[in-house]
């Protein structure tokens, strides 16, 4: 399996010189199986970069298929979708998952993001590809070629978000890019979902209430992520969902501050990087 990070930022894209190493695009992760199966987690602005990169293949010819899991309908998870070029090419099929975590359906959330007031595209109907919204629930499993996918609900402040667990052969990656534990305690369901993963991609933030969610960088301390990884015996933890103001230097220092004597590797997700399992 190849896991590629196309966007690692929280809340809003952050262009600028100080974020070029870690990256300024908002959340998007792709998982590619050995047979070419493609699974995408989240459609922040990082999905636009990935979208352009695949046009030379099937997706440019209208012969592409992909499964897109939106973990939560906050903007940083959906804002790239109206700019995702494969969605405009007739013949491509895109299955979108995530309705459980919207107060309405995923289709309604994406449709109203494209409301004529906000978007010249005006409606999902004006995207020429074939969009499907399969009905999946937490706990469901599905297969994408040789990828076995399991979905689960994870806590996310006062709401909930989706976790995505993918297994190919003997290797497992779990993606929890937007998750917070309000009491600072990782619930047993989350630990069970993360258990023994070869790779856990986890939100760097600890829970912070109210306005501080935007302004407090202290929450971006990785404490909860490291605790969750340790308790679940994962082999490697990759932190993501960085504050838009965190510079590359600050993130390096943060990584240093976590130390190296954990029973698992810890890395910061970097836009453009690929990990192999």
């Amino acid at each position: 399996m190849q896991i590629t990070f196309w966007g690692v930022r929280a809340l809003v894209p952050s262009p600028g010189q100080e974020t070029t190493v870690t990256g300024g695009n908002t959340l998007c992760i792709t998982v590619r199986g050995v047979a070419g199966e493609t699974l995408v987690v989240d459609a922040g602005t990082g999905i636009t970069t990935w979208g352009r990169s695949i046009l030379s293949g099937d997706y440019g010819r209208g012969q592409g298929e992909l499964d897109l899991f939106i973990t939560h309908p906050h903007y940083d998870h959906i804002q790239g979708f109206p700019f995702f070029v494969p969605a405009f090419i007739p013949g491509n099929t895109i299955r979108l998952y995530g309705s459980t975590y919207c107060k309405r359906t995923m289709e309604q959330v994406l449709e109203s993001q494209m409301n004529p007031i906000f978007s010249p595209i005006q409606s999902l109907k004006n995207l020429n590809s074939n969009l499907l919204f399969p009905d999946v629930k937490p706990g469901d499993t599905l297969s994408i070629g040789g990828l076995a996918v399991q979905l689960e609900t994870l806590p996310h402040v006062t709401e909930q978000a989706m976790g995505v667990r993918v297994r190919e052969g003997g290797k497992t990656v779990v993606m929890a890019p937007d998750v917070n534990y309000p009491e600072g305690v990782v619930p047993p369901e989350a630990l069970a979902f993360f258990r023994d993963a070869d790779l856990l991609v986890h939100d760097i933030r600890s829970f912070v209430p109210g306005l501080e969610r935007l302004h407090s960088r202290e929450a971006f301390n990785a404490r909860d992520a490291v605790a969750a990884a340790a308790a679940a015996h994962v082999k490697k933890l990759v932190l993501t969902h960085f504050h838009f103001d965190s510079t590359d230097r600050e993130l390096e220092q943060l990584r240093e501050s976590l130390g190296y004597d954990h029973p698992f590797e810890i890395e910061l997700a970097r836009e453009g990087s690929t990990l192999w399992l």
Partner: protein
Amino acid sequence: MKVLFWGVRGSIPVPGPLTQRYGGNTSCIQLETGVQPVIIFDSGTGIRRLGQLLAARGTPQEIHIFISHAHWDHIQGLPFFDPLYQSGNRITFYSRKRDEFCLRDIIHKVIEDPYFPLSHEDWKADVNFVELEDGAGAEIAPGLIMRSSRLNHPLIANAYRIDHQGRSVVYVTDTAPFDHMVLDRDFIPKAPDLSAPVAPEVAELLAVMRQNLVDLCTGADLVIYDTMFTEEEYNRNPHWGHSAASHAMSVCTQAGAGHLVIFHHAPERTDDQMDRMMEGIIEQYKDVDMTISPAIEGRTIEID
């Protein structure tokens, strides 16, 4: 009078090494007149850093934000505009009036569940909304005059002019030229045939819009104009609502403006490609009596 460019990119913010020089933040421009209020055109992601600077000045502040239109790239920075969250500040939004909806409702929707973890109820500043009739103007402070004019862009956009002590700046974005079609509610799926004749009532409306814009720009020191497209790109997609340099030059030369700023750069256009585009534009119009320069994030233009 100083113009500060906080965000100059169109459509979507573009982080990354290829857009470092011109900048990746979406539309936000500040006008410093030396007097209150703070004047801001649009609130793309560029407003975030401006907001940090303003918030550091403390309260109370009077801030006027002129919204050209509510496409995402012009309002997406608002939830991150720190002065909204400071009590004591007074923030006024201006936009063109539409009967079917009002800016207050739109902005409240932008900042609410399910899209964002906070809502307008988290704002601490005193916020109000002014909806402008077509072509309306106002004296927003003694000697500080604002005028507006309708632009040719879906769901309608407004251009704004500010005059103060004999100096003037006009903000013209987003707009298609006034040649072939009126862009309003309808979604146009394919590029129309540009050689087809234009219906008389459409041609008349376009002519009126164009003349109003020329009047707005008459004698202006600086015109910041949506010139996202190259000429070829415009011809391929005239229905997308943006202009090329030739359209901007046509309006600005007729209006006798002093300086045209190329603005609202296409998201896929790298810094090197922008350099070449600017070289081509400057070469093409070298014999025209007009300064032409690019909008660059972080740049300040002084008007004396």
